[in-house]
């Protein structure tokens, strides 16, 4: 682990209560792209705005979506956010680029408080976000225009936008569709476009909320290898997923349970805690179950982390 690296985002005792909602989380209605076009009902009108109905103490009868969350995202790490539906993953992710600001506690990005509206632009130029539902973040009518929206907003020179868009679309496997209207894309292609839009912004930190949910197995594999390459290139990545087989390359995992951090640690450490998975809403993928039980019941030489290639290699190596 890179202990000397800088802190990208830091949450300190963050509690967040959705205004108006009961216990509700918002699954991403109406977010604009990175530029604060947030119109969802349960979001602040402006960064730093604390809704009036929430006094400094927490309102009675409302379950906070996040409670006392303290978390540091370090530069260059790939952090997996895990937990069941409704555990607060998306709410936490939206704190990382000031789409939501803490009801209590503090959140900083590269040392800038997300509560100060003057920091918002700089924060969103540092942290780009791919939302759960790609429909909510596609704003362009043509594929390449949509991917160019982020860098245009950042004031990137046109030639550079062209290069970045081209590279981002190529990485997302959409280069040949770059002239197509966005409405002609399939669900999975829209999801790749959302990723391309975030890549084109070339921010030091990338936050992805279930980016693989709508992708076919190959698309998932390809996206994970894009993330692998970005991670090797030093990008800080925070990704949310329900599939534990997707976190094998991550440095660290954080498990949320009812808005609180239930566990954090490295990936082998997480797989060693499989007895808690049920409680956390996690489920060991079949390969991990096989690996865990074979390790417990046999002396077969199995790899330390249950990757498919590692398992094939270990089990097929014939004497």
């Amino acid at each position, binding site marked *: 682990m890179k202990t000397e690296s800088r802190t990208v985002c830091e949450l300190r005792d963050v509690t967040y209560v959705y205004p108006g*909602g*009961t*216990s*509700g*989380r918002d*699954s991403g*209605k109406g977010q604009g792209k990175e530029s604060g076009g947030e119109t969802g*009902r349960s979001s602040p009108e402006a960064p730093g705005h604390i809704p009036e109905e929430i006094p400094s103490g927490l309102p009675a009868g409302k379950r906070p979506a996040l409670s006392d969350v303290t978390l540091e995202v370090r530069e260059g790490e790939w952090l997996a956010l895990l*937990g*069941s*539906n*409704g555990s607060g993953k998306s709410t936490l992710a939206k704190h990382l680029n000031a789409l939501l600001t803490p009801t209590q506690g503090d959140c900083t990005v590269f040392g800038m408080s997300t509560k100060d509206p003057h920091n918002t632009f700089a924060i969103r130029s540092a942290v780009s976000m791919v939302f*759960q*539902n790609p*429909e909510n973040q596609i704003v362009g009518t043509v594929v390449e225009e949509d991917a160019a929206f982020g860098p245009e907003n950042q004031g990137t020179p046109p030639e550079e936008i062209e290069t970045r868009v081209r590279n981002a679309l190529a990485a997302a496997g959409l280069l040949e569709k770059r002239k*197509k*209207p966005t409405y*002609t*894309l*399939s*669900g*999975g*292609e829209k*999801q*790749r476009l959302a990723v391309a839009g975030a890549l084109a912004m070339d921010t030091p930190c990338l936050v992805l909320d*279930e980016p693989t*949910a*709508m*992708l*076919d*197995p*190959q*698309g*998932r*594999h390809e996206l994970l290898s894009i993330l692998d390459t970005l991670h090797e290139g030093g990008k800080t990545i925070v990704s949310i997923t*329900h599939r534990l*087989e997707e976190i094998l390359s991550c440095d660290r995992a954080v498990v949320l349970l009812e808005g609180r951090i239930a566990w954090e640690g490295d990936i082998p450490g997480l797989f060693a805690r499989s007895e808690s998975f*049920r409680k956390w*809403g996690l*489920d060991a*993928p*079949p*390969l991990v*179950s*096989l690996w865990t*039980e*074979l390790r417990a*019941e*046999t*002396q*077969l*030489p199995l790899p330390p982390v249950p990757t*498919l290639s590692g*398992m*094939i290699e270990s*089990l*097929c*190596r*014939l*004497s």
Partner: protein
Amino acid sequence: MSIIVEALYHTYHPGTPLETRAVENISFECGRGEWLSVVGHTGSGKSTLAQHLNGILLPERGSVTIDGMESREKSPHLREIRRSVGLVFQYPEQQLFAESVFEEIAFAPRNWGVPETGIPAIVSSSLSLAGLDESYCARSPFHLSGGEKRKVAIASVLAGTPSYLVLDEPTAGLDSWSRKELVSLLGRLKSEGLGILLVTHDLDIALQCSDSILMLDHGRGIVNDTPQKVMEHLQSCPVPGLHLPEIAALSSALRRKEPSAPLTYDWKELKRWIKNHAATEASPLTGRKS
């Protein structure tokens, strides 16, 4: 009683520069009480196909017949077809609109002319079929978690008492336990006589649950067979966008070394084989014991 699709074609924006053939010469049949999964790469035509099954899209060529009623323009049966085939969209929030879960679920039966006195019973049975309790009735569907929204969307489709349920990637974005619950809910509905047509990327689910699997590649149906045959096909010829699930891939790799290994998606079966094999004197795996 079945859904029969014969030589179906569909082209978006015909005669324009954007012309895209989404579905090409697809045929299959799915009866009541059967589970057919449709798998394929993103953009392979799965959603287009799903939307043909309850008359949202009408065939350009070929035919779609539901329990003997043909789905085509000006068909007198379209209303009945839409009632027989319930469609759960890709994003459940797209189909939720009412202020409360009760109103949401009551919408379909009211639409079909069920008298108001009969509505509460239908709402309550649909909720329980979908694995939700009555406490949800008064809640706003927009304040539910992703998994709960999905269940409400399914309950609201079940309230129309369909004979077939078509689901477009219903497990995307669900956590593992919600996914398992949803799969067992579909299994229950199937055993109660509903035909299940599941559009999915999740080959694990498709292999475990389906009676048959239809694989699409660029709008064409390339294989329509049992899960076991589909695994054998994927093992021998790659299909765009699809990989064998990890356990099946591992078992397939082991089979290349040891033909006695099973080709399976079931990790418990594979574990049994590995353990038995490791215990056998002649096994090369024995040599790996440390």
